[in-house]
């Protein structure tokens, strides 16, 4: 039976002819259900999704990369909401047209962020500190017949760090 990820709905905090907008106050912003749905809307319409967050509340890199892949980004407020920066602290100019239909964002630079894996955060890291913890399936009906699985035994990763100079040109 397929998973049914689109059962619930959401409305972005703002929408115009060239943007979708979501304002988030959560301190640990992750790629949860509501944002996934809004990204789906962004993908299907070609409208970039912009997320506004308070300065000092970093979004998870997976969120930043997902919205940037659709032409949007995560904007951090500064000066009590009077100005904005991107994830690297670069100033970003944000203007809304008179009728609120058009959003212009200038100076935003896509940010890779910290590693999406390992201890620096990333997919699901805050929710599931124990990789062996029992799962809560999305669709309980599907999970009822699920046999328990044995996770791969964690091993010590051994990728050596690269030396300088950098390999990329």
């Amino acid at each position, binding site marked *: 039976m397929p998973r049914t*990820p689109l059962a619930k709905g959401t409305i972005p905090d703002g929408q115009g002819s060239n943007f979708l907008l979501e304002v988030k106050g959560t301190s640990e912003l992750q790629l949860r259900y509501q944002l996934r749905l809004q990204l789906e809307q962004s993908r299907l319409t070609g*409208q970039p999704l912009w997320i506004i967050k308070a300065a000092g509340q970093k979004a998870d890199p997976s969120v930043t990369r997902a919205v940037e892949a659709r032409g949007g980004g995560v904007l951090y407020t500064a000066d009590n909401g009077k100005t904005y920066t991107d994830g690297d602290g670069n100033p970003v100019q944000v203007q809304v047209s008179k009728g609120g239909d058009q959003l212009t964002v200038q100076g935003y630079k896509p940010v890779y962020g910290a*590693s999406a*894996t390992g201890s620096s955060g990333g997919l699901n890291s805050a929710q599931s500190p124990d990789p062996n913890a029992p*799962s809560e399936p999305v669709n309980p009906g599907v999970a009822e017949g699920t046999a328990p699985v044995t996770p791969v035994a964690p091993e010590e*990763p051994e990728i050596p760090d690269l030396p300088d100079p*950098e390999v990329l040109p």
Partner: protein
Amino acid sequence: MSELRVELFTPGILRDQAEGRALLDALGEHLPYWMPHRYGWSEPLRNVYDPARPEHFWDTAHGLAFRNAARNASGEVDVRMGPWDILSKITLSGRVPRSQLESGTGPFLSQCGRALDLTYAMAHIFTERQAADYYRLWFETAPSDDGTVRNAAQGPFPHCLRDLYWANVFGPPYTELFGASRLRTAPAAVVTELRPGYFYLQVTASIRDLTDAATVPAYQAARDAVKEHLGPECFYDPAAATPRRAPAFRTAAEEGLWKPREGVTLGPGVQELLDRIANR
């Protein structure tokens, strides 16, 4: 901290269960440390991978995210569902045991090249700074930003490749671009014609050449020699005065994979794209 990164690009929409099984088979055989443990559509990733039910895992209609049991590697499937999209993308990245890194990376990529309809694929080790550069170039290789989300959706592919990486798979569009004979004679450590139209190129014998200061210069020289042989104008060069060369890709809208939904406000440029398609 360095990480191994593998990216697979395909013109397909990755709905076929055989594609999911092919990916899982290749992972299980060559990079088992990266086998999915948790997976789902949004965080938290609530599903636990069950080898007996790969079809429950490979439900990619709206995208798929997963991570390994050790929580230090993750994967993502991003299907070309937007109007501007030209390729679907499977991304795998994270830490990996040395033994699998050395013996599994190349075979994993080449097995994917045999089993999946890949346009292009790469595997490479990046430091965090290199990963950031690699990411940045996705957005910055386009000659100009036309105000649409096209650049973000298409990345460098309409213009060039970002670089030649340690391991590479070139599918039919790139085989046509470079020429099969040029690919066959590339001065790379490994050149394998996986099947007609699909080539695997590995710059040096060992991926560890990227991680040893003593071998990096030799790696760079080998990489540059292969790029020179294939056609340096097909790769990103910030100092280049001449236009780059790339295959001609078609958007999901042009291929009929995406259609506007009634009552939906379309983003900048999308209606013009539709008008262009209608007027052909």
